[in-house]
């Protein structure tokens, strides 16, 4: 369908399984300029892919398009069985299922400031997935233990360190049991040692079970966490790493 001359076939992961994410011909303009010119990519189920590139190259925008946080102007996004199209707001029911299937971790953790770590993680399972309160709290507790915060359940975000906050944010995203996890510079606000720990935690929790798209400008983090590295330049994927 895509007739642009430089359109490339969607890159499919080596194992040949159904792609968890398939993007083709994605375009997005902002203020007259193309932020995403023509992005086509594919991520296999269980695969971890890193998106690298200079700041302002559109990698965060691309990530946000993958779970409907941002709309786009052209192309198609298939993610976890949902199809997103330009200027079409999916019905509320689909959007909720999309959001619970595709988790998102922000560069700035965006933890709910008025809630404890435990309640931050338990809120969405209870409200969105409809878990009973005790079930949601139990799930949150287990997840926080797995990210190494079993002792800080009652702490509020302002009482946690940067690394701890980001761990809670990862637990919060995973509490919805997503099949895809989108990470937007999850460690760039942290010092190298803390970043290392958080990266390790993410890997432990997702490896093989959750499809991961990681946006970062840190080459070494990309190499470490991803099986494949895609480079974004001027709104296009220009190179594929190993």
């Amino acid at each position, binding site marked *: 369908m895509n007739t642009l001359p430089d359109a490339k076939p969607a890159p499919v992961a080596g194992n040949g399984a159904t792609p968890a994410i398939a993007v083709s011909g994605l375009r997005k303009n902002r203020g007259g300029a193309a932020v995403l010119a023509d992005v086509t990519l594919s991520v296999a189920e269980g695969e971890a892919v890193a998106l690298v590139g200079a700041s302002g190259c559109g990698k965060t925008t691309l990530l946000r398009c993958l*779970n409907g*946080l941002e709309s786009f102007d052209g192309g198609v996004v298939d993610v976890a069985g949902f199809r997103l199209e330009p200027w079409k707001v999916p019905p*509320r029911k689909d*959007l*909720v*299922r*999309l*959001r*619970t299937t595709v*988790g*998102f971790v*922000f560069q*700035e953790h*965006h*933890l*709910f*400031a*008025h809630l404890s770590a435990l309640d931050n993680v338990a*809120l*969405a399972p209870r*409200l*969105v997935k409809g878990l009973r309160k005790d079930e949601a709290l139990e799930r949150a507790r287990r997840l926080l233990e797995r990210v190494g915060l079993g002792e800080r359940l009652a702490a*509020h*975000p*302002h*009482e946690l360190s940067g690394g701890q906050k980001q761990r809670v944010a990862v637990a*919060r*995203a995973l509490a*919805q049991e997503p099949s895809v996890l989108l990470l937007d510079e999850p460690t760039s606000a942290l010092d190298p040692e803390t970043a290392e720990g958080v990266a390790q935690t993410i890997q432990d929790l997702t490896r093989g079970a959750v499809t991961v798209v990681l946006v970062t400008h840190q080459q070494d983090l990309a190499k470490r966490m991803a099986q494949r590295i895609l480079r974004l330049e001027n709104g296009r994927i220009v190179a594929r790493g190993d």
Partner: protein
Amino acid sequence: MEAAPDLLTKIRERGELVWGGDIQGGEPYVFEDPKDPKRGVIGFETEIAAGLAARLGVRARFFQADWSTLVPSLERGDFDVALNGLEDTPSRRDRILVSVPYFVFGETLAVRAGSTAGSLDDLSGGRIGTLNQSYGYDVLKARGFEPALYEGVFEPYSDLGLGRADGVLLDHIIADRYGCPRKDVRCLPADVARGVYVVGIPRGEASLKTTIDAALEDMIAKGELRAILERWRLWDDRQIELSKPRPSPPPSVPAPAEPAAWTMAQAELFFRGALTTLGLSIAAFALALPIGLGLALARLERSRGLRLLATAYIEAFRGTPLLLQLYVLYFGLAPIVKLGPVTAAILGLGLNYAAYEAELHRGAILAVPPGQTEAARSLGLSRLQTLRHVLLPQSFRIALPAMTNDFVALLKDSSLVSVLTVVELTKRMTIAAIDLRSWIGPGLACALLYFSMSYPLARLAQRLERTLHRGGHEHPA
């Protein structure tokens, strides 16, 4: 040694007799000429003042004052004499000198058309309206009534017609003009009591009193007073008493009221007033909060219509005085909705403060970092869930110190509802000040009670503010 010149000397030196009165509801006493308001005031008292001034060999100049504070204003020296339907009562004689009478009035009892009441006693236990500081008030108190006090002459009759009062007792001049002509009001023919209007003169100014008395007696003897009263169609059989040799001492009713003393009963009344103030304020704030929140959300809506409506509400209520809103609600809307005084007071304060709370909460919601909404969206929370579980709990904390301050302001603004005849703390003070013949004790008691309610709240607001600044808040990146 030469004593300081007395007031009479000063008036003569100045060439001007300054007389105090109130033009609100002042027809036929003293009022602005409707044909040419710039020309100054007219009315039968204006002509009496001119007659007095002429006899003193000076000009007369009118000074506008609030009728219910004529006596304190006279004591303060705002004007030389008070000449505005000032009834001769024992309580006035305690504070100021009074002249010989220039008018005899009857207290006319007005009841609702269709009422079978034939005398004041038939209305025992009912709600009887009169003016604050009036002779009618003294008469009602002496007869065991707890009068409903109004600030204007039109409102008590309108409330009577609407069934918000059972009777109105006021001077016959007022009753004849504002009450008896109404279709929904019937005036009883017999005077409940009789009294006289006198000129109020500051205490200690005996020479001025003698001169004013002589001037009035001269006006009576020469028929000049009668001519004035006839011109204003006020001359009736009652006025014959004026020419009788000694028209004072003051009239038959009521028994001279001794100044009340500070008693436990007074203190209890003050506490009750404070409770009324507190109760009104809490009820009004409980109304203002949800309405304000609703308006704030409407202003943040995408829908233009909703936004415009909310903005219009907020600007209308913030852009006009609360007092005006209370008048409109209670008196203006009366033909459509007949609200009781307390209901109108709570509604008026609540609707007004809703506008302020709306802006406060809108600001607070906008002050929650956008990342919070973003995170909620990314987790699949609906707009309503985001609002209920993420935004409002945080914006409320941001707004809480300012909300507490607003409540303190509301507590004090609630004194305005006394114009709707609600006896709250401030009104209680003005009533007590009359009964006790002093503003100092009641004023202090009133201030103390307001302060003891507002100060702890102000401290609470400060503490909340400190807690808020200590943390628990995502700082925008």
